């Protein structure tokens, strides 16, 4: 039950993009088309789950064991950067078509604040290993959801008559605000 709650909380109630403001850059950058939004979402979910697992081990068995928790930012960022490289090589070996569809997004993920935010949030909330993995997957799926909804709206938006000064990022941000309002409705899900 606890795990289900963590999953729902990370994906819907505390959606990373719409209520924690993490990963806004790709959210605005890649949400032009639904297909690329889906690929980006899956890439992020994959990396997030892996990061959640690995940073948990690093935190517990290296940083805390050696008594150097102040090194967490330096070590997390190095881990994430090398993990993304590793995932890139792995996907290239395993599946060529998957690699071709994801390869442009993978370097973007390194500088995605959602991944580092995930590691830090997991650390702050003192999750256990399984909880942290579920949290990572949930956050990734929440990110994908927000990205795909946004991409769908923006595809429709091309036909809409938007005031001239609000075209581009401005209208995307306002739409994101409305989406965030809608997602606030999920808040009742957990407390009830």
């Amino acid at each position, binding site marked *: 039950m606890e795990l289900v709650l963590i999953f729902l909380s990370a994906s819907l109630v505390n959606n990373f993009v719409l209520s924690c403001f993490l*990963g806004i850059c790709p959210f605005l950058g890649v949400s032009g088309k639904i297909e690329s939004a889906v690929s980006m979402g899956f890439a992020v979910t994959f990396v997030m789950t892996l990061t959640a697992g690995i940073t948990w081990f690093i935190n517990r068995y290296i940083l805390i064991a050696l008594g150097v928790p102040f090194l967490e930012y330096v070590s997390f960022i190095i881990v994430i950067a090398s993990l993304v490289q590793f995932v890139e090589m792995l996907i290239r070996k395993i599946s060529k078509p998957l690699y071709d569809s994801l390869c442009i997004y993978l370097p973007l993920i390194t500088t995605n604040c959602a991944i580092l*935010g995930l590691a830090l949030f997991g650390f702050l909330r003192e999750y256990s290993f399984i909880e942290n993995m579920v949290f990572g997957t949930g956050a990734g799926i929440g990110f994908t959801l927000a990205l795909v909804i946004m991409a769908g709206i923006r595809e429709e938006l091309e036909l809409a008559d938007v005031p001239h000064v*609000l075209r581009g990022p401005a209208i995307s*941000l306002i739409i994101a605000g409305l989406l965030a309002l809608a997602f606030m409705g999920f808040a009742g899900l957990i407390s009830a």
Partner: protein
Amino acid sequence: MILGLCPALAVTNSAVNALTMGIAVIFVLTGSNAIVSLIRNIVPKQVRIATYIVIIATFVTMVDLFLKAYYLELSKALGPYVPLIVVNCVILGRAETFASKNKIGLSFIDALGIGAGFTITLVVPGGIREILGMRTFFGIPVLGESFKPWVVMLLPPGAFVTLGFMLGAKNLIDQKIAERKRTANMESRIKLSA
């Protein structure tokens, strides 16, 4: 303006938080720009990004520990967004495009300028959201009791909408300036032909 959006949205629920974040960014930016420009000739090209990130992360850790030691309340309010300065594209961008090619003095001044601009773009939405959401500005009441606070401005949707309209306003101003230039050009051309 679009770069470094995450903190711009997350910490701008009050002017004080926004200002703190801005100062933290100025410190990290000047520190990392100075170091990067000092070591720009020593670091091999292949590992430069990784090196920059480690330098930035070190400065961020310093800021974070400083805030925790002297301003615990602020540090709690900003939460994980101080460590997230590490992945702020503005800082890495300046290190890569400016500090790695210029002398230390220039890099330092560049960092101060960019940091100040970033702080302003944080404090403006922070101020707007604080005034509309809590009737105060830097904790001082500015709107009378009769104004009902818009709580939604303090919540995530308020952040997105405020920033969206700010971008719109900026576009409008840019457009007006471009128009004025065009008319000025036309006028001077008319004068010349006359």
